[in-house]
């Protein structure tokens, strides 16, 4: 059989990064081709090339055997469609307008809304969505938005669908529904590129599996059933040792350090984001907080560090009420914070390492006399940190933006840990890091646990939560839908149900 589309020796370079290094990839009609790799392996770049958003520096793309160069419009004319992970939709527009965007039928100079609506309705029915095409996108749930994203590409009859990490924001049950949709698409002889870093999905969905690492294809076209998860993992990482550090759970937690009582938070539109949330964290304990993203994790973190004020409820650290305290006061009271957005909230990228490590502590007697900064001392301190935390090849005056993701994260952790926090909030601490850096971050968190810090780990990565937490809470629509006390003996399915709000707690708590 002829491939419907084929990439040959595609090279794409960005300043300082070789994103795609002579990549080859072939896609056949009616197949699902899974593309796996760690963050930064070059999958997204490759797909953007396929969808015409980037032009390759070298190499060629053959569609039905003919070499083509095209932009996004061209890609859509070749019936190539992209389903984005973060939904390329306009929330203020209706479902209808979002779907016809770029392909609006025109009659007599006007958009023919009537015929478009008819067509869209049939798709909505096919995907069992009982909503009006005039509903605004912003009123839809994440799962519904995903389906709209797929309808968008079917609307122009795409025969090649690129799904970029489509399950990242779905519950396991919603993912299952998506896989069924993929099956029906295959039956219609459409080809699907399925990008993921979740190995189990890849095995389940992919007819063929290609693995990328550091911009290169390291394994092309493994057939379904010929390969195990471990083999894929090894190919992804490129090392034999894929062992991630685990919490040994050897000592028992101490007294309660942080306590949240009946916390509520309403956003500026009056929508409740946190409902009646109570929890305790004890010293020497890692409390994992899981759930599908967007179920209150961000709000919870921001309320904990003081960037948002709760609407109701109280926050206690060692019995001291911090509900109305500012960020600075809370930091003094012993709250440390590793942001999930290290490039903006965690660091000043344009600043030097020195400037970054003293932030929030600049009035400390170590660094200043209250007005003048003691740059000599700061430099000394910074050098020590670089040594202590094994941040390789750095000088204190270096700009942070030149560092690798792992080193950036180490600097943040060093800054926060050196303040000897009583509570350490780590949000997605290993996101986007390579395996070596992930292990150093895990090690640092476990050291903090040992030292008696109460650690809150917020993560979207179930594996990470299950290997590090002493206890887990799952958030659903702003309240706790389930608690896992015995982390060693829980299945992903059970957690999945809690993530979808179907846990026991959820039933008890709503209404």
């Amino acid at each position, binding site marked *: 059989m002829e491939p419907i589309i084929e990439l040959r020796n595609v090279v794409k370079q960005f300043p300082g990064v070789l994103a795609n290094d002579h990549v080859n990839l072939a896609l056949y009609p009616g197949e699902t081709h899974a593309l796996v790799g760690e963050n930064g392996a070059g999958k997204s770049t490759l797909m953007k090339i396929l969808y015409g958003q980037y032009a390759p520096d070298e190499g060629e793309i053959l569609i039905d055997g003919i070499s083509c160069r095209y932009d996004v419009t061209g890609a859509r004319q070749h019936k190539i469609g992209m389903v984005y992970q973060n939904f390329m939709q306009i929330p203020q527009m209706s479902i209808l307008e979002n779907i016809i965007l770029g392909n609006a039928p025109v009659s007599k100079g*006007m958009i023919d809304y009537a015929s478009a609506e008819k067509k869209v309705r049939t798709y909505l029915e096919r995907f069992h969505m009982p909503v009006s095409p005039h509903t605004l996108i912003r009123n839809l749930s994440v799962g519904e938005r995903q389906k709209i994203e797929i309808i968008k590409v079917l609307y122009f009859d795409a025969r090649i669908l690129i799904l970029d990490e489509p399950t990242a924001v779905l519950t396991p049950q919603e993912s299952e529904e998506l896989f069924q949709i993929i099956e029906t698409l295959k039956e219609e002889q459409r080809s699907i590129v399925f990008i993921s870093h979740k190995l189990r999905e890849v095995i389940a969905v992919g007819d063929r599996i290609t693995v990328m690492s550091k911009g290169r294809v390291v394994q092309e076209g493994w057939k379904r059933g010929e390969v195990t998860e471990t083999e894929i993992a090894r190919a992804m990482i490129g090392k034999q040792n894929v062992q991630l550090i685990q919490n040994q759970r050897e000592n028992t937690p101490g007294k309660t350090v942080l306590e949240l009582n009946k916390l509520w938070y*309403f956003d500026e*539109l009056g929508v409740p984001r946190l409902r009646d949330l109570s929890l305790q964290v004890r010293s020497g304990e890692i409390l994992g907080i899981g759930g599908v993203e967007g179920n209150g994790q961000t709000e919870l973190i921001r309320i904990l560090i003081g960037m948002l004020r709760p609407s*109701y409820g109280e926050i206690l650290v060692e019995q001291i009420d911090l509900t109305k305290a500012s960020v600075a006061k809370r930091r003094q009271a012993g709250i440390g914070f590793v942001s999930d957005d290290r490039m903006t909230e965690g660091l000043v990228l344009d600043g030097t390492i020195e400037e970054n490590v003293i932030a929030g502590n600049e009035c400390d007697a170590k660094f200043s006399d209250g007005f003048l900064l003691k740059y000599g001392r700061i430099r000394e301190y910074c050098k020590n940190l670089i040594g202590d935390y094994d941040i390789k090849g750095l000088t204190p005056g270096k700009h942070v933006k030149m560092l690798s993701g792992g080193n950036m994260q180490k600097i943040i952790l060093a800054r926060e840990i050196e303040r000897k926090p009583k509570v350490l909030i780590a949000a997605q601490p290993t996101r986007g890091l390579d395996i070596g850096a992930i292990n150093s971050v895990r090690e640092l968190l476990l050291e903090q646990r040992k030292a008696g810090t109460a650690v809150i780990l917020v993560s979207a990565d179930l594996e990470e939560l299950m290997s590090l937490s002493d206890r887990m809470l799952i958030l659903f629509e702003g309240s706790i839908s389930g608690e896992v006390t015995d982390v060693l003996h829980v299945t992903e399915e059970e957690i999945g149900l809690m993530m979808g709000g179907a846990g026991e707690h959820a039933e008890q708590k709503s209404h």
Partner: protein
Amino acid sequence: MDIVTILTVAVRHAGPVLLVAMGGLLASRVNIFNLALEGFMLIGAFSSIVGAFYTGNVWLGVLFGVLASTLMIIIYAVFIIELEVQPVVCAISIITLASGLTRYLLNPVFGVSGRYVLSSELAMPVVHMNWLEAIPVAGQILNNHSLLVYFALVLPFVLAFVINKTKYGLDIRAVGMNEEAAVSAGIHVRKVKYSALMINGILCGLGGAELALSVYMFNVGMTNGRGYTALAAITLAGCNPLLSLITCLLFGFAESLVVSLSGVGFSSYLLGMLPYALALVAAVAPQVARRCIHFIKRKKSETEMISEYYRN
């Protein structure tokens, strides 16, 4: 001075501002805050007088104004879209440049400085419609304006249609609301932005031409903040074309009041503040109102939901 005259003058004053505002509105809709409306209008006004002077024809003067202002806005577009210059900074340099160029060129072109008056034959002709005389008040107010003023009055309806009903309008809205989504839908964002800015330039040229040719003269700084007023008008109207028509007429009315009341002995300077004070309120008030409404809404749902929850 009677109210009919004031309203007639208000419509006349609103004309140029409306043209410029509609241009700015299109730019805003593709997410370009065009602070330099003032500069483009000034270029349009000056060039239209130059054009009329050399060709001896009003309409060729208008064409000249439109061409100059469009040329200028293309440069502006290249600067902000291709060279990624901060739009506000670029806008201010355009305003400075427009003011400097028109001041300087007045000398080599006309041999005067400060202002130049054309012969009155080159004034923008007004259109007299007999049938309008039959209608009391409204007929009088709407009669005897220049063609460009009528065009300005119709324009908001045209734009409302284009933005809401056509493919081009959908593209414009998409680009303004979420550029990334527009790119991924295969919309040529660049083309949409350039075209919106070009129309913006044409309209600024028309606005400037109407301003200068209706009084067949140019004086330095004659736009006198009208570009900013137009911005304020669309800000107040939330970039809705029909609401912008109303706000522009409102500003025209304020300006007309200034003209008529200053003759009666009020301080014209204090009255001159009126449009800008309105514009300032227009810029700030929606935000204040939005915050208040959100605050009330939020407090309400907070108390209701929380007490409801703990009652059971």
